[in-house]
């Protein structure tokens, strides 16, 4: 992480297939500011070889469905949601 730029702390939640691929349910990362969910996911996807593309996922910020372009603040909780299959 480049300490010359401002950074934010993000709590990341992984569910279902993503949790298994990442090997954890929850982690906190430091990320350059400004950032969007899409940038963060693409970074994490490359880092951890996550299979699902953003088009297959929904995203939630602080337990609310959000767009991939919403600007993130420090201490946001960011969740990536594979297609659901309840019921």
């Amino acid at each position, binding site marked *: 992480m480049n300490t010359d730029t401002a950074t934010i702390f993000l709590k990341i939640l992984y*569910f279902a*297939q993503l*949790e298994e691929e990442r090997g954890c349910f929850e982690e906190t990362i430091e990320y350059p500011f400004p950032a969007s969910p899409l940038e963060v996911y693409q970074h994490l996807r490359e880092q951890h070889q996550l299979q699902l593309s953003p088009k297959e996922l929904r995203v*939630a910020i602080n337990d*609310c*469905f959000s767009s991939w372009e919403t600007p993130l603040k420090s201490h946001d909780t960011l969740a990536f*949601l*594979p297609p*659901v299959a*309840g019921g």
Partner: protein
Amino acid sequence: MDFSVNKPFLQFRLSEEPVDVMQEMQFLQNPSCGALVTFTGWVRMENEGKQVNSLQYRAYPALAVKEGETLLQEVWESCHPAGISCVHRTGHLQVGDLAVWIGVAAPHRAEAFAACQQVIDQLKQRVPIWKKEFYPGLSSEWIH
């Protein structure tokens, strides 16, 4: 006595424990209601041609409950039943176990049937709950 001006009973829950169906039905008892329609989702022994031994439900609890409550509110606005209760299991379930229970009480049956179908249709599309199936002799899979 006019049910429609009363606040509806709307309840969406996740449960790690087996569901007590009699208790769920009692939540919806209402002397203005002549109809209760329920949907019970059971774990089936097969899915899309593959034998299933068991399965695991994983939820995003904070968002699942919020989205479930929004869904019940929307269905109430569409059909105006007197009450809707929905409980979804999490954890590891065996064939024959109850995975989801939805009950809708209403004065008359048409709105109860309509609301119950809307809840299960929408739940499967929107509520962040995931299912992993375990097969005999094959790798388990998260279902999309």
